[in-house]
Structures are given as structure tokens and as C-alpha cells.
């Protein structure tokens, strides 16, 4: 939530100072495809990608991140990135299949029933905190003595 840019933040630098404000390096889809396929075909990239897929990061998220990085580096425009994204997904899935990794494609609507480790850890911490709090508080219950009522309408 707090990572979002502040309104007007894009105007704090000179126009053209950012890579995405100057003409892109690859102007056509063909050039962008060639760039990505060449980059993604290296052994180093494939190993890293297989590791990330093993961590259960969805393919959709990875593809979006890769194309977004391309836009921010000034490699291509946003629209070329949008066109190329399905190809990136297919390529990532191919890398996953090639490495024999069971990956999450991110294409299914139905959430898997597996409970995330982070969620379990969060619940465990919360429970532990509650236990600690209950142990710290004294258990002695004060019994309040009823004060005698002295009003006009008080019962005798």
C-alpha cells in the first residue's frame, strides 16, 4: 500500500531522465520476442526461473514482472509488453516443464486448498501472543462488594 507512488512523483525529474521516457530500444513485437527468447534461453536464467517456480510463485506474476522490468529499462513500450506477455508465460511454463517443476500457472480461478506456510506462521504467532498475554495477567478476580444504596428509592 505504501509502495505506491505519491501523486506528482513522476514530475520530480526532468522529462527524459527515466529510461521509459525515451524511445524504446525494441520498437516492434518481433524485436521484443527475439530479445526475450534469447535472454530466457540461457542456462543461468532457466536455473533461476526453475528455483522461483519451485517457490510456488505464479507464472502470471513472473511474466508481468519480467515485462514490467523491460518497460522500466526502456527496452520496449507498455503495449509491446502486453502483447509479448502471453509468450513469456508460455516460455516460463516450458522452462518449468523442462526442469520437471510443479508450478502454479496462475490461470485457474479456484484457489488450491493448501494452506500457505506464511499463514500458518501468522496464526501460530497470534496464538502464542494470546497465550503469553493470558499468562502475564493476574488471575485473581476481585469481587466487588456492593455498596449500600442510600437513595430515597433504595430498598430497605
Amino acid at each position, binding site marked *: 500500500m505504501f509502495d505506491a507512488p505519491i501523486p506528482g512523483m513522476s514530475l520530480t525529474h526532468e522529462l527524459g531522465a527515466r529510461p521509459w521516457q525515451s524511445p524504446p530500444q525494441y520498437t516492434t513485437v518481433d524485436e521484443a520476442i527475439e530479445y526475450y527468447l534469447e535472454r530466457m534461453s540461457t542456462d543461468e536464467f532457466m536455473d533461476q526461473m526453475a528455483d522461483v517456480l519451485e517457490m510456488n510463485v505464479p507464472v*502470471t506474476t513472473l511474466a508481468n514482472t519480467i515485462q514490467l522490468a523491460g518497460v522500466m529499462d526502456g527496452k520496449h513500450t507498455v503495449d509491446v509488453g502486453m502483447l509479448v506477455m*502471453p*509468450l513469456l*508465460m508460455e516460455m516460463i511454463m*516450458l522452462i518449468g516443464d*523442462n526442469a520437471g517443476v510443479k508450478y502454479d500457472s496462475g*490461470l485457474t480461478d479456484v484457489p488450491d486448498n493448501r494452506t500457505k506456510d506464511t499463514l500458518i506462521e501468522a496464526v501460530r504467532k497470534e496464538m502464542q501472543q494470546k497465550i503469553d498475554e493470558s499468562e502475564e495477567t493476574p488471575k485473581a478476580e476481585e469481587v466487588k462488594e456492593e455498596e449500600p444504596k442510600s437513595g430515597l428509592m433504595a430498598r430497605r
Partner: protein
Amino acid sequence: MPLVNPAKQLYHSMDIENLDVPAKRTDSKGLLAPTRNPMSDEQDGRTKQPAFKVGHHMLLLRKQRERLQDV
């Protein structure tokens, strides 16, 4: 406003199962064969569309994946 990842919609909208790649024409090569401009051989320029090119590449990768899954 939450950031939206359009990857899922884009992937589904490619519809590469129904992507029909036009077969290459094999014209006769005789001296009397009618000459044809290869540039005008395109079917309404569909194959020049960027989305078609991406779909074609995807189809190749998909076939490769299916081959891997079969093995």
C-alpha cells in the same frame, strides 16, 4: 486501488487453439505458370498482425511443452 495483473486475461484471449496458420503455397514453376506477386499472397494481412506472430510463437512452445509432457 489494487494493482491488476492482466496476464491471465491476455493469455486466455490469445486463443491459440483456433489459430490457423496458413499453409505455404506451392505454385507451379513452369515457364507458362502465372506469375503472382508473393507480397499480395497474404490473407487480408492477418499474418502480419503482432498478435498473430505472438500466437504463432506460442503455438510452437505449446507443442514443445506437450511433447515434454507426453514423454
